[in-house]
């Protein structure tokens, strides 16, 4: 039981950052950012590489920076080269695979031996449960900063860019700039998540990003279905709650082995299909029944 609660909170908080990032790209900017998987691994590789060389704290900042850079590139592809957003994300994602290997010296993984991590530093200072407390503090810090930022002049411009493109194009907002800043922010949050996961697991793996974007979206949607999404604060809360619920299911399945944990990705795919497709399904059913009644 305790194990389940612990894993749920650890992973829910750390991966909650990915959902928070997707809230920015998918909900605010209205862009399905498929570079998310690669950016997550990028953050992980950068973070573990710096920790490997004895700089676990700097590692997290570098992870954030690397994500911002990656998001900027994806956004440039979309705005200046006018590559469709989905394709832009895939291009960055593909390129990142090599970059990530390079960071790990062309090996498919990099493990920490006795090096310190941000978690072990806290444990050594006598703080128990650092793997919950640290992610919680980071989530609170990042979401507070994001919340405040979205209320600033720049934040409002970014929100408008995703909300009404026509309006923004005819306004004094430079839609290219806001898209770039928005995606840089989203991806820096994603790579921070990857960076934390890397140090938490004490290893970075080139394949650990598979499905991150889909799971993150599923969490976002689960959260939104529980909390109404009529204010930024609730939106942010929804990302965390969705992520925690998802990780609870994950932990229960992992513990009880009702079915092999590998099944979870298939189930996730189902969850997200149903959640996003539900409005259309509902519409079809309603129009069908109306048609029948009419006939």
């Amino acid at each position, binding site marked *: 039981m305790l194990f389940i609660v612990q894993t749920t909170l650890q992973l829910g908080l750390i991966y909650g950052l990915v959902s928070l990032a997707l809230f920015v790209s998918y909900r605010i900017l209205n862009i399905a950012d498929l570079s998310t998987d690669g950016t997550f691994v990028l953050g992980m590789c950068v973070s573990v590489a710096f920790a490997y060389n004895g700089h676990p704290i700097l590692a997290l900042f570098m992870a954030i920076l690397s994500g911002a850079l990656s998001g900027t590139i994806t956004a440039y592809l979309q705005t200046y080269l006018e590559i469709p957003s989905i394709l832009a994300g895939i291009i960055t994602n593909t390129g990142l695979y090599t970059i990530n290997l390079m960071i790990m010296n062309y090996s498919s993984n990099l493990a920490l031996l006795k090096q310190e991590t941000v978690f072990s530093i806290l444990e050594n200072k006598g703080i128990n449960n650092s793997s919950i407390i640290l992610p919680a503090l980071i989530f609170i810090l990042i979401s507070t900063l994001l919340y405040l930022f979205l*209320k600033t*002049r720049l934040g*409002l411009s970014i*929100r*408008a860019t995703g909300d009404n493109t026509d309006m923004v194009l*005819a*306004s004094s907002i430079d839609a290219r700039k806001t898209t770039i800043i928005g995606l840089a922010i989203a991806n820096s949050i994603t790579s921070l998540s990857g960076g934390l996961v890397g140090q938490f697991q004490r290893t970075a793996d080139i394949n650990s990003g598979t499905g991150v974007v889909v799971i993150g979206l599923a969490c976002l949607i689960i959260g939104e279905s529980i909390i109404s999404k*009529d204010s930024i604060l609730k939106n942010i809360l929804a990302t965390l709650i969705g992520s925690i619920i998802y990780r609870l299911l994950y932990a229960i399945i992992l513990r009880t082995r009702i079915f092999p944990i590998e099944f979870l990705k298939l189930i996730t795919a189902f969850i997200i299909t149903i959640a996003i497709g539900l409005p259309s399904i509902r519409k079809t059913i309603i129009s069908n029944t109306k048609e029948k009644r009419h006939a």
Partner: protein
Amino acid sequence: MLKISNLNKYFNLNTINEVKVLDNINLNVNKADFITIIGSNGAGKSTLFNCIAGSILADSGSIILDQNDITYKKEYLRSKMIGRLFQNPLQGSAPNMTIEENLALAYLRGDSSRNSFSMITNSDRLFFKEKLKELNLNLDNSLNQKVGTLSGGQRQALSLLMATIVTPKLLLLDEHTAALDPQTAKTVMDLTDDIVSKNKITCLMITHNLNHAIKYGNRILMMEKGRIVLDLDNKENITIDNLLDRFKKETGKLLDNDRILLSSE
């Protein structure tokens, strides 16, 4: 104020589908002019606005706004000086943001003294309330309402407020009441007239409503096939009938617009 010289615009230049949409347009707009523009479908009215605002670039000629050559300036930079309203009331505001946030976006545009990280202050809110009250649409206590929940007329009125909350050097109205029912159209039109004359805004308005074209503004332009065929001082006693007559005399055909309104109300 606004000086357009020898402006030309082709679509599909150098292809078999080449069309000349603006044909050597010359126009001098004085400060505080309120000009109405009428013309057949496809005459090039919206294209002229698009060239002035920068959503499309002219092929040749020049556009000078208040001594700045803006012919090839980026659209978002021109928007600091030019306010725009479109036919579609949904185009001018962000539906998932609140009234206050939409107004803040519009308001911050002209104020370069604030940095990117400034937020809406309480004095901003008081100012917005004041402005909303002037619209007379009972929106002054709905600062936190999402814009997506407003009616078409309310949204167009809000867009008007957003376009003028920082007084623009030029206001471009492209059939901005055409999608509204007659009563709402009248309300929005009266508001427009009120705001434009109170702030002495230089304004160009495309309309298919001949009555509006005569009733508002001080100058009437008629466009046909990319050219300005008539430029009337709206002080003479113009009626819809002699407007139609003069159009026919200039172009040899009837004014043909699918949305034309000839009614006198």
